[in-house]
């Protein structure tokens, strides 16, 4: 339980875990740095993490190679490796990088991208400017302080043949913990001392980039994972890069950072685009919107159950007891111990709290 509490303190950055079996299948070719690059359309490449699901994550990225420049979505911790991978694809310069929100695994690489291409301009939601130096800085401080200790505990548990709940460790958990420990080490190598780079261009509803015949729409479809969520939409290619509005295999919810009340509507707006391909913030490229709908239904159910509880004046603790997510837990996590554990940590706990807070603060 001590480990679980620590993970909770670390909050979002220690993402939804679950060590299910192997790494997600990917159609791309592996790159050094823990991701593979998959071509989605002419000039459009997803850099998709290959770590097994775990408590630590780094983010996916998207490269859109145009006639004379490149537009990139998100700046993960592995940005140095991603820059190298992009340079193997093209010699064209990166003109714009979109930060889908302000969490470190999506923005910490900004400094590296700017160093590689000084003319780059960063695009973010207007609220990112407020969140990154405040809540973002607090998250980072917590991670830098707590993550190595947490990794040490994981290593100690593994050495004892135990999982975080002090039960005998499974192969799935062992593989997941090992990945988490690697990611923590990488985080500690990359993040401390790295300059925060705020956007050059703030959007509210969005903007459109015109690159030759290509159109790249950057849109705020609503809040969900954070207030600052942006989706990058290629209307001709019908490809959506979603940031953490969509995270596989377990959604990533922060009790004080996410807005579960708004999340279903935002996912509805995403689904309404009718994307052919979805590049989630974490997880493999999705070829339909089934998983996005599954997330939408999960959050809609949480909101509905919370509303019922709030209507009779339930406290947060009473609401937690009243909300029943067992069927969703089965749907998302199956019988994977790691995913079930993560579902409890990253959905049941924070999502109910987020929905309860929004339901009680605003009539």
């Amino acid at each position, binding site marked *: 339980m001590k480990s679980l509490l620590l993970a909770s303190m670390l909050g979002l950055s220690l993402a939804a875990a679950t060590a299910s079996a192997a790494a997600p299948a990917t159609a791309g070719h592996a790159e050094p740095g823990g991701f593979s690059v998959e071509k989605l359309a002419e000039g459009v490449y997803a850099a998709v993490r290959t770590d097994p699901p775990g408590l630590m994550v780094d983010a996916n990225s998207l490269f859109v190679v145009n006639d004379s*420049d490149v537009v990139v979505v998100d700046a993960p911790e592995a940005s140095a490796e991603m820059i190298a991978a992009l340079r193997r694809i093209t010699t064209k*310069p990166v*003109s714009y990088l979109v930060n889908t929100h302000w969490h470190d695994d999506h923005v910490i690489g900004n400094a590296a991208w700017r160093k590689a291409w000084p*003319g780059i*301009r960063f695009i973010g939601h*207007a609220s990112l400017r407020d969140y990154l130096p405040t809540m973002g800085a607090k998250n980072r401080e917590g991670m830098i302080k707590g993550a190595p200790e947490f990794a040490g505990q994981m290593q100690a548990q593994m050495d004892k043949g135990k999982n975080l709940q002090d039960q005998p460790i499974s192969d799935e958990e062992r593989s997941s913990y090992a990945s988490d420990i690697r990611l923590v080490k990488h985080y500690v190598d990359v993040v401390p001392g790295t300059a925060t780079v*705020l*956007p*050059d*261009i*703030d*959007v*509210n*509803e*969005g*903007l*459109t*980039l*015109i*690159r030759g015949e290509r159109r790249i729409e950057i849109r705020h479809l609503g809040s969900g994972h954070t207030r600052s969520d942006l989706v990058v939409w290629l209307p001709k290619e019908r490809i959506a890069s979603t940031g953490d509005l969509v995270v596989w295999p377990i959604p990533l919810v922060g009790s004080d950072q996410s807005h579960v009340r708004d999340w279903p509507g935002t996912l509805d707006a995403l689904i309404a685009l009718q994307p052919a391909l979805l590049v989630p913030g974490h997880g493999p490229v999705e070829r339909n919107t089934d998983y996005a709908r599954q997330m939408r239904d999960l959050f809609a159910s949480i909101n509905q159950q919370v509303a019922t509880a709030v209507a009779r004046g339930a406290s947060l603790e009473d609401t937690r007891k009243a909300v029943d997510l067992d069927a969703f837990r089965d749907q998302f996590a199956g019988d994977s111990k790691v995913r079930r554990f993560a579902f409890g940590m990253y959905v049941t706990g924070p999502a109910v709290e987020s929905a309860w807070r929004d339901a009680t603060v605003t009539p």
Partner: protein
Amino acid sequence: MRLILLVAALTTSVSARPDPRAPFDGDALRSATGIMAFAEVPLAPAGVHAKFHYDTVPVANGITTFIEGPSHGLVQGNITLIVGEQSALVIDTGQFPAVARRVIADMRKLTDKPVRYVAITHWHMDHYMANSEFADAWPGLTIIAQDFTAPMMDKYGARYARLGPKLEENMKPLRDMLASGKTPDGGEIAPDRRARVEAAIADMEADRPEFELMRYRGADMTFENEIDIDLGNRMVKLMHLGRGNTAGDLVAYVPDAHALITGDLLVHPVPYSYGSYLTEWSVVLGKLADLDATVIVPGHGPVMHDKAYVRQVRELLDGVVGEVKRVWKPGMSGDDVRKVMDLSKQRDAFCHGDKSLEGSFRASIETAGVDRVTQELGGNMKPESFDESN
């Protein structure tokens, strides 16, 4: 298109409607970019336009506007430089490439920060035909326009850049007038009129090389309502506050300097209202008046240090809309309205009896503007265009 208006103005009469038999683009005469030519500004010293005089006017700390001098021919909108600690942004690029090169050289003397953004206030060609010069000077810069504006620029800007060879045919009515000594309606040409026509021909001849240099360059980035640019310890808000002079007007607001750059939502001394939306325009000016601005740069005309002109233009728009509403009955055309309306009070307020300003006012406000209000009342608002009558 300004050119056509000029020719029409000089060959018919100061107060006449534009000549519907214009040699190209037909009713383009009534559209936006030409109106300044009606001003028939007092004669400037010879050769002024050949060098295209502009004034470099400090607006606020780190903000400078390059304001066109008097012209008898084509004009260009004001160009404004906004400098932050990391980079700079330019509002509009004018229409003359060679002039833009001089402006760019002057900007480099004012700052060593790179211009990384250009924002275009609207799609009329006197505001962006020198985009290529700026893009060459600062490679990789981002050209920004409102969603409506970008495709209109693509449509008209590319065509405009190819107009050079047509200049001569557009000067022909003027040359004929001088050769015959007669105005097109057969009257004797007065000496002062002759001097203005000669000056206009000289200016157009000076403009001709500019057309040879023009290369169209469109937008890289568009937005609907607002994006904000961080130039390094200085935010610039690029906003579209509703339809007004065009359906895609962009204004730039610099909160730390209390500075507002309006594009042709404000034009001094006589507003342009070609293809405009007068009722909504008044609402937009109300929003501008609500901003905490102590210095205002119009699309054409001098830098202003209070909101008096914003209010004056708003009153004008309200007055025109009110007068047309007063006299209009279903089925009435703009011409029908003009027979019974009275905008003399508004005309006097802007023109003070100045004949050339009155020519501008009649064309822009009493003709084009009244036509637009009439369309609005009749529920048949035509799309903005240089291809058909507005």
